[in-house]
């Protein structure tokens, strides 16, 4: 299989194509940077966003175009017949070609990531721009609100964070306590609540007063909150909220490379899903039709939600009262066996579990571009099923 993978890779990842993608990505970043913005910081952020949007389009387009010609064009030009006249099973041939495409997409993601990072580092020469994109500091009490919940001996700090902030954030803090009753070596439970775009998570870490602590968190983060609880039996007296004098949330300046890597890893996964759908379509229909299908899926960006949304829509239209039931079960939510089959087949289990008690109407309605890669990347199980189905049909097709 290796020679087939290698030849497919060489065929798809041509230097001319990769360099075109790289130039286009750099152009996106610089177009973003040259768009009118109130200050250097906003301009840098705009460049980052436009660059990422460009990468979504370029990588998605590359995946769709390559995937849709992966099988159909080979059949049309007769190359498939030449190869499959050899003792090579058809499923293996498709898989090998798809393997070559996966490698090519990986290469393209790496190239685009490097170009994006390099272009951004050119823009981020100005310190204020760098601060805007690479780090944001929230220092109590100016940038946060806090509540002193005296009876339960808790202080709560909330940090409102821009939802568009991308990458890995590091929460760094130093808990400075004014109260002499807390011994320096004593550890206090610090409950951290992070609310990002996809999930909410809680963690409890033990921190020592006046010693720095660090917590890594996945972004984008909508808000972060800290609850500091005093241990039982400690006769601490918190005079006021200023007793905790310095708690800093820092979206780490050093992790920008990590954030870019994260973003492009996600784009790679998304492009894989697009490519798998395109490849599956290309084993069944002609290349232009397969390309149209892949582009449609990519542009709509709600591959994982499209089918359940339809099922939901059908269900809700027929029995609207179900939406009002908070503890609905799968049977209530998708009453017919067909609907349940559609939902189960089209949703990976973790998503399904997450979706069930959630608000059925919310998902899949609003799809801003920034969520497209995440949504498409989550659709790989469906893409895999599509690819398997295509291999099955292709193995019985006349060439």
């Amino acid at each position: 299989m290796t020679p087939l993978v290698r030849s497919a890779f060489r065929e798809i990842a041509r230097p001319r194509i990769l360099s075109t993608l790289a130039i286009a990505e750099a152009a996106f970043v610089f177009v973003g940077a040259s768009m009118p913005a109130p200050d250097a910081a906003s301009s840098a952020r705009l460049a980052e966003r436009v660059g990422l949007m460009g990468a979504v389009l370029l990588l998605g387009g590359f995946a769709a175009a390559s995937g849709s010609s992966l099988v159909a064009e080979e059949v049309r030009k007769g190359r498939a017949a030449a190869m499959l006249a050899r003792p090579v099973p058809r499923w293996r041939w498709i898989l090998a070609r798809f393997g070559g495409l996966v490698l090519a997409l990986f290469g393209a993601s790496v190239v685009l990531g490097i170009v994006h990072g390099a272009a951004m580092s050119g823009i981020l020469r100005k310190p204020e721009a760098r601060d805007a994109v690479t780090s944001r500091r929230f220092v109590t009490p100016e940038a946060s609100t806090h509540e002193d919940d005296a009876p339960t001996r808790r202080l709560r700090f909330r940090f409102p964070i821009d939802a568009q902030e991308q990458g890995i954030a590091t929460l760094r803090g130093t808990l400075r306590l004014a109260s002499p009753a807390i011994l320096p070596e004593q550890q206090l439970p610090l409950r951290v609540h992070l609310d990002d775009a996809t999930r909410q998570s809680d963690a409890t870490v033990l921190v020592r007063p006046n010693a720095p602590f660090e917590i890594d968190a996945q972004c984008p983060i909508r808000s972060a909150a800290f609850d500091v609880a005093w241990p039982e039996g400690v006769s601490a007296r918190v005079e006021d909220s200023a007793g905790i004098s310095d708690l800093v949330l820092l979206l780490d300046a050093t992790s920008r490379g990590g954030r870019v890597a994260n973003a492009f890893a996600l784009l790679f996964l998304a492009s894989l899903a697009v490519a798998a759908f395109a490849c599956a379509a290309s084993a069944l229909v002609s290349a232009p039709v397969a390309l149209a299908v892949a582009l449609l899926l990519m542009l709509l960006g709600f591959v994982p939600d499209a089918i359940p949304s339809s099922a939901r829509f059908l269900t809700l239209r027929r029995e609207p009262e179900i939406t009002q039931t908070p503890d609905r079960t799968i049977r209530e939510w998708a009453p017919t066996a067909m609907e349940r089959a559609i939902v189960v087949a089209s949703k990976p289990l973790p998503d399904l579990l997450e979706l069930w008690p959630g608000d059925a109407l919310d998902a899949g309605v609003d799809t801003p571009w920034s969520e497209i890669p995440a949504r498409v990347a989550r659709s790989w199980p469906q893409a895999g099923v599509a690819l398997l189905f295509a291999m099955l049909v292709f193995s019985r097709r006349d060439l």
Partner: protein
Amino acid sequence: MVQAKLSVRGLSKTYRDFWGRRRVEALREVSFDVEPGEIFALLGPNGSGKTTLLKALLGLVRPTGGTATIGGETAGSIAARRLCGYLPEESTFPMTLRAREAIRLFGEVIGLDRSASNASADRLIDALGLGEFAERRLRQLSRGTLRRVGFALALLGDPPVLLLDEPTSGMDPLAAGTVRDELRKRATAGATIVLSTHLASDVEGVAHRVLILAHGRVLASDSVDRLLRRDGVTQLLVEGLDATGMASVASTVTSAGGRVIEGAPARESLDRVFAAHLRRETTRDAARS
């Protein structure tokens, strides 16, 4: 070399459209056998079903009726395909590859290890006169040269069965001659060779037996000698006689009860003259360099 007999019984193929409606009957009850060491030609006009027949033997199209076996294995199975070398009608390859790389790649695909694949590539490049094109990208090669590369791919691994679709199409007479020589050599070594063509000269020059197809139906099937023979007519090639001498030969024939149908100076085929000129030019080039 392993020997493999090819046997086809009542093979039919009907192409249908998306809705399952019958569109074209490409093959109708075709039957024949090809023994090892034999060159068997499928002769027919465009659209007669030659390519479909070869593809059906390789499992590239699914026959709607009949059976075919290659070396005792069901045609189209992996085991049967392992015995076959195939030259498709259109020589299309990954055009970014160089000729040598393409041959190596196909060698690895059919299961040769890297060193065996390299050795086969070198041998075939020499045998088919592809030396000067070996390091060029396929997209830079002429159609005829691409056909020769395709032919080299078909010969990889010395398969006991060769299925060749229009093997000399697009080739100059010299290259076509090289291909025919190679086919004769392989047949002598015991290979079973089926070639499809619409050029009668291909059949006359190389095939032992021929099957004439039209609209998927077998019109005739026999040895080339028997098909070309004109019963009761004898051809006599005479050298060194002037017109008077020829007149006396004619009168002898007439007095013996025969009839001279035609008497004219013997002519070479243009193909042979062309090939001879090319060969001379090539020899001169080699001497100059």
